[in-house]
Structure formats: C-alpha cells, structure tokens
C-alpha cells in the first residue's frame, strides 16, 4: 500500500497571501457598480466625484481588507479596474538577503 506522506492542509509550501495594489482607471468607468457589489471584502465604494464622462467611479476605502482576488478586474465590463500583484514584503526581504549572499 502506498503511504502518502503527511501533508499540511495547503500542501508543503506555506501558502502565500498575494500582495498588491488596486488600480482604477477612472475615466474608463461607467459607474455600473459591479466591482463594489461583488468585492468579497467590501474594499470598494462608489465615490462622490465625477469622471470625465460624468459617472461616479469607485474608490478604495478598505485597502487593508483587500485579498487581491482580482474579481473586480474580471467583472469590470469597462476594463477600468485591475490589480497589480507585488511580492509580499517578507519574501522581498528574503530575496534581497539571498541576493546579497
């Protein structure tokens, strides 16, 4: 019988939580509200300002809650919001240490 090695719930590697930044191209937004409604962590809110087309683009209100799942990017029908993924700070530090070595 094949014995499987004991695995941690998410595999051997420690799960990385993605880090990033939310970018909103305000002038493309048509104010449909899809991203705000379906953000799992309520990171976004419709803002009070107007863009050049007269719509209210969304704004980031709870950035710390963002899990960078990218659903806002996927659901935006106007290609106006996206996530720029970044390496988490810890891993960055580790990298720099390695490179110094």
């Amino acid at each position, binding site marked *: 019988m094949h014995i499987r090695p004991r695995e941690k719930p998410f595999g051997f590697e420690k799960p990385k939580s993605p880090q990033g930044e939310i*970018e909103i*191209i305000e*002038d*493309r937004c*048509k*104010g*449909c*509200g*899809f991203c705000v*409604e*379906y953000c799992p962590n309520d990171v976004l809110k419709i803002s009070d300002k107007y863009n050049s*087309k007269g*719509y209210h683009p969304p704004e980031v209100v709870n950035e710390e809650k963002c899990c960078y799942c990218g*659903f806002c*990017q*996927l*659901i*935006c*029908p*106007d*290609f*106006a919001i*996206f996530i720029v993924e970044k390496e988490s700070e810890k891993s960055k530090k580790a990298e720099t240490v390695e490179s110094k070595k």
Partner: protein
Amino acid sequence: MEASKTLTIEKEQRHPMDELLRMDRIPHIWCPGCGIGAAVSAFAAALEKLEFDLDKVCVVSGIGCTGRVAGYIKLDSFHTTHGRAIPFATGIKLGNPDLKVVVFSGDGDLVSIGGNHFIHAARRNIDMVVICVNNFIYAMTGGQVAPTTPIPAYTTTSPFGNFEPPSNIPRLAEAAGAVYVARWTALHLRRLTESIVEAFQRPGFSVVEVISPCSMYYSRINKLGEGIDMLRFYHDNAIIRHGEPTENLDIDYQKQIIIGRFVDRERPTFMDSYRKWLSGAESISKEKVDEKN
C-alpha cells in the same frame, strides 16, 4: 480616414488586458451595466491561461451589441454580416486549420437569423468555440423581441408581453451535435473562464452561453432595475448543476436559471473526417481524370 481622432488615456495606468484590446477604440460602446464587457474579460482571462500563440487566434462576430466584440479584441478579428459569423468562421477554419477560431456573438445573431448555420456547424463538428452572449433581447436595434425572450417579458415589438416560447440554446446545441456545452452568467466569471478554457481544449464545436444583463432595454422595459440588479438576481437564482439534462434548461421569466457544464463528449471533427476522406479519395480521382484525348 486617418487615425487621428482617438481617445487616449493620459495616465500611465496599463490594465493587464490592454495587451488584448484595441486601445484606440476604448471606451467601448456598451452601456453601463452591460455584461458583454465582463464576458470579454473572461475570454481574455481564458486566453491568458491557455497560453496560445495569439497570432493564431481569430475572432469572428456577427451584428448586434455582442457583434461589436470583434472590434475591441486585438486579434485578427472580423465583423461580418448579421447571422453569418459561423459560416464565415467555417471558411476561415477550413482555409487554414491551424487557426483557433472563436465566434463571439449574440443570441439573436446565432440562434435566430443564424440558427441554421448554428445547427449545421454543430452537425459537421467544425472545430470552433462559440461564445453566445444571451441578453434575451435585440438591443442594438432598440429592444425587439428575441428568440430567447422569456414569456411574458415586454419588448418594443411585444408591447403586450411575449407569448412565443423561447429557444433553449444548450439543448439546441446538444441536439445538433456540439461536443461541449456550458452556460454561465455574467456573474460566474471564474467558472465561465474555466469553461472557455475547456471549450478551447475540446476538438470540435463548443458552445458557451453567457447570460448577460441588458441594462438599457431588457431590464428597463421590464422594470427590472439596472445591470447590477440583474446580477443580484443571477446571484440569488442561478443554480449550478453540472451534467443537467439539457431539456431542463428552459429559462422562465425571472425564475431560477440552471447553469453549469452540460455536455462534454467526443466526436470526430470536420477536418479529421475530411482528411480521412481525402486520403481515400485520391485513388478515385486519378481514375476519373482520364478523358484526355
């Protein structure tokens, strides 16, 4: 006309999808709250996952709101006549079988005026992916009744309510011989992306139906709110049932919508059969050309 009058976006923000879009044509013409843009996002995400050589992918559209998709995707793209996207794509696929051909069009275009071509392309099993955005209405011409309009929805040409039974696209596709049939909504985008990936991987005629809100005509005439309200409705009423028999997939007005992947099978594609036929045919043809004096 020279390409001078283009709207450029000043900031250096580069959306990851910009590579795949004709940026000189963005913003697109779709209304606020329309789901076609989301379907395009899912398509782009699927292409990213598939890691195809994008030079070898081409998009063909018919006429209508969804018909404009071809004009915004930066691939070899064709905006053809109403209903004839599938035959045009058939020609492309047979002309150069190395290409990946996608037909991206609407329900009226594919099932009404193009219904015959839909059936026969599925029957022949021509290797292409058909993404059918179903918004239950002819939106480009101003909200006329469509072959998918549920009973008794109002449209401008059914001002007293629609009474014609609507088409069930997955069932039609299955019966005609499609090898892969799935239906998602403009909200179930991760699964939609997954489905488009699978549709590309299956050799043969694959159909992915995308239920999408028409915020300007369908929901306004029927007083269903805005695009976002339609998405909320999908959220509450869409039930995922993979492998559901397609006869159960009729869509009733504002009732539950069964979504999922319904058909996934194998059949020889047109080009496979054709090559086989051609290799067998060579001997015949040599015999026949003997009328030389």
